[in-house]
């Protein structure tokens, strides 16, 4: 027997066994691959390519590099020039490029690029480009006569950085840094909008996750222990929100909670609050939290339910028979076994909440906006690169969270339903 295994095994018709096996398997593999191909293409087209494109946009912008060839060349030849006092040749190149931009209609594009890091430059570029073709040497005085802003060191720093196609500047802006005359610096208090909003988004998502968990736990438990007929009815109630338009649900909350809404009317009628100080529960953070909790609740209930359903009642009975009170039984035996569900539900709700856009946009007012609303704002303003950088930061944060989850709980224990 031992010698048989060392010599080459062949099939009945004399072909080597390995080869025959490979042929047989490759056919099966090809068939399997063809079956998943449509899905693969779909995922590629709708998911990987857009995300890849977004990540690329967040580090790439050739608006200035393309429009200012002379300056690009000059910056390359003169690294580390004096930003506070650029020489005449630099101004000559700038004027040449401004003329080029005017004829090629690239002013807006390059101005927008510089505007990311040095706000207020679009109009400066437009005016400069219009005047450029009439300017005579010495160009420095001539251009400064058009607008003294052209001497700002920050502007020269910005232009030098923008002369390369690839940049990390959008991330610097996205983390509240500012390009000043002396280089990049932390923004002042009033400029710290992005990090603050990130923080606020995570905080609000955390609050929503906790509220969802507290509300979902008893519901999921009830679903798991009720007899089939009644639990399916309850399940329909849980799923009902999925079958209703998000817009309808959100506007219902507006109708309920706004200052002239049903809840306030009721409270005023009951005399709990006065007519002149109605509770403001809409168009602020409260509104965002209430409406988003409602929207995301099923995403907490379902993973919890799927975990609770398979916990046999004999565990609780065993604990009780061993002398544990019902509270101890819950805390020591039931709760630990629901942890995978809690973790899965919390992860899901938190990630969904962090990226939620529509509900805060509708009911958040000024105070209830989250980071995704700001991303959307930059997209509408065509600040694609900044929007992409902010979105990439959000993505990174979520991946970090996912990694943490995997480390602490194990992704294979994730149960979503």
């Amino acid at each position, binding site marked *: 027997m031992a010698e048989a295994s060392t010599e080459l095994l062949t099939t009945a018709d004399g072909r080597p066994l390995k080869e025959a096996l490979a042929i047989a398997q490759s056919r099966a593999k090809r068939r399997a691959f063809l079956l998943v191909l449509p899905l693969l293409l779909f995922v590629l087209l709708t998911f990987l390519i857009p995300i890849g494109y977004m990540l690329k946009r967040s580090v790439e912008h050739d608006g200035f590099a393309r429009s200012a060839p002379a300056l690009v060349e000059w910056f390359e030849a003169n690294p580390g020039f004096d930003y506070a006092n650029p020489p005449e040749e630099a101004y000559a190149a700038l004027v040449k490029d401004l003329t080029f931009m005017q004829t090629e209609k690239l002013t807006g594009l390059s101005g927008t690029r510089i505007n990311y890091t040095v706000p207020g430059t679009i109009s400066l570029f437009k005016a400069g480009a219009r005047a450029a073709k009439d300017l005579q040497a010495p160009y420095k005085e001539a251009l400064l006569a058009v607008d003294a802003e052209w001497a700002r060191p920050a502007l020269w720093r910005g232009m030098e950085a923008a002369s390369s196609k690839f940049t990390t500047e959008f991330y610097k802006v996205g983390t509240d840094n500012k390009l000043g005359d002396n280089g990049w610096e932390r923004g002042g208090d009033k400029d710290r909008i992005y990090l603050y909003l990130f923080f606020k988004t995570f905080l609000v998502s955390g609050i929503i996750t906790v509220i969802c968990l507290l509300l979902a736990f008893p519901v999921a438990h009830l679903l798991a222990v009720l007899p089939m007929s009644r639990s399916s009815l309850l399940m329909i109630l849980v799923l009902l929100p999925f079958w209703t338009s998000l817009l309808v649900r959100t506007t219902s909350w507006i109708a309920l909670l706004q200052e002239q809404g049903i809840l306030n009317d009721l409270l005023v009628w009951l005399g709990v609050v006065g007519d002149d100080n109605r509770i403001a529960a809409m168009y602020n953070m409260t509104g965002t939290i209430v409406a988003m909790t409602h929207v995301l609740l099923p995403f907490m209930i379902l993973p919890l339910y799927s975990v609770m359903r398979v916990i046999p009642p*004999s565990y609780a009975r065993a*604990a009780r*028979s*061993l002398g*544990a009170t019902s509270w101890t039984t819950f805390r020591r035996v039931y709760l630990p076994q629901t*942890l995978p569900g809690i973790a899965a539900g919390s992860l899901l709700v938190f990630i969904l909440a962090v990226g939620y856009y529509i509900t805060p946009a509708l009911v958040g007012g000024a105070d209830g906006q989250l980071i995704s609303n700001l991303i959307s704002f930059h997209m509408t303003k065509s600040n694609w690169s900044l929007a992409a950088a902010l979105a990439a930061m959000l993505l990174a944060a979520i991946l970090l969270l996912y990694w943490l989850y995997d480390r602490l709980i194990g992704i294979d224990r994730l149960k979503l339903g």
Partner: protein
Amino acid sequence: MTSQNDAFVAFEHVQKSYDGVSLVVKDLNLSIGKGEFLTMLGPSGSGKTTCLMMLAGFETATHGEIRLDGKPINQVPPHKRGIGMVFQNYALFPHMTVGENLAFPLEVRGMGKDERETKVKRALDMVQMGNFINRRPAQLSGGQQQRIALARALVFDPKLVLMDEPLGALDKQLREHMQFEIKHLHETLGITVVYVTHDQGEALTMSDRVAVFNDGRIQQLAPPADLYERPENSFVAQFIGENNKLPGVIEELTGDKALVRLATGELIDATAVNAKEKGGKTLVSIRPERVEFKAEMMPEGAHMIDAEVREIIYMGDILRVVLRVAGADGFVMKMRNTLGQTRLDPGQKIKVGWHPQDARALDPM
């Protein structure tokens, strides 16, 4: 046998209904003595688990009273009853190690760490699982989990331990071994055990007394030997062990001796058990190993009837002879496979008989 008053566990007129329409347990009266090993045996759905759950406190009796050590426990919550319980699926907490599982009942009783450790160790040694203290239940085999479940039910020194088909998931060999161990623990610890099983062999080998359940009632409550040899009704006779049934009518009744005329006209001897009137229908039950076919083995004057050999099944230690008796196939006789044993052949005509006390005239079902 214990009387109702000094019983350790007593069910009195207990009834149970889950749906308010039908009774799952009908008028249960049962008293279990201290240190007794009582088994509830019965077909699926006969209400055994329900009785156990009522005793453990997970179901409430619809009617009647359950007493533990003289005190009514209907209102006592499960965790205050101090009853150890072993479940069919073991119910070991999957997120705790073996040691933590065993320490759990001690912890909730507020026992100190040192005492806990000694007790856990002692309980594990008792089931020969001392080396497994840091394993998780998922890392144990079925038999090992079973031992841990047993140790956990015993670690807090309960006076009463309930076991609901604890060996149901084990293979035959392991089951027999565990039966022995459970019995041994019962004897050394002096605990009272209420044991539920489907398996009559298990019930007969382990118990002091067996309560045979059917249809929510105890059909017979007796020590194993009585149950096998003196079944009180057809259900018990049929449920426990193998059994030949001959339907007939009581022809003569003198004391507890009955003469039964079978449908085909033959007369046989039997002991009247619960067929008490002359002319009444009855079902005579005879164990296969008590059937004789040699006239010299029969007592004086006992009846023998004609039989035709249909089939002989060789089973090693015994030979199963399937006969046609009184116009019906399927009458079984067991012959010891000894050296000088008479050889029978299919088609052979013989006569069979039995001692009158081995044939029991029971209710006609």
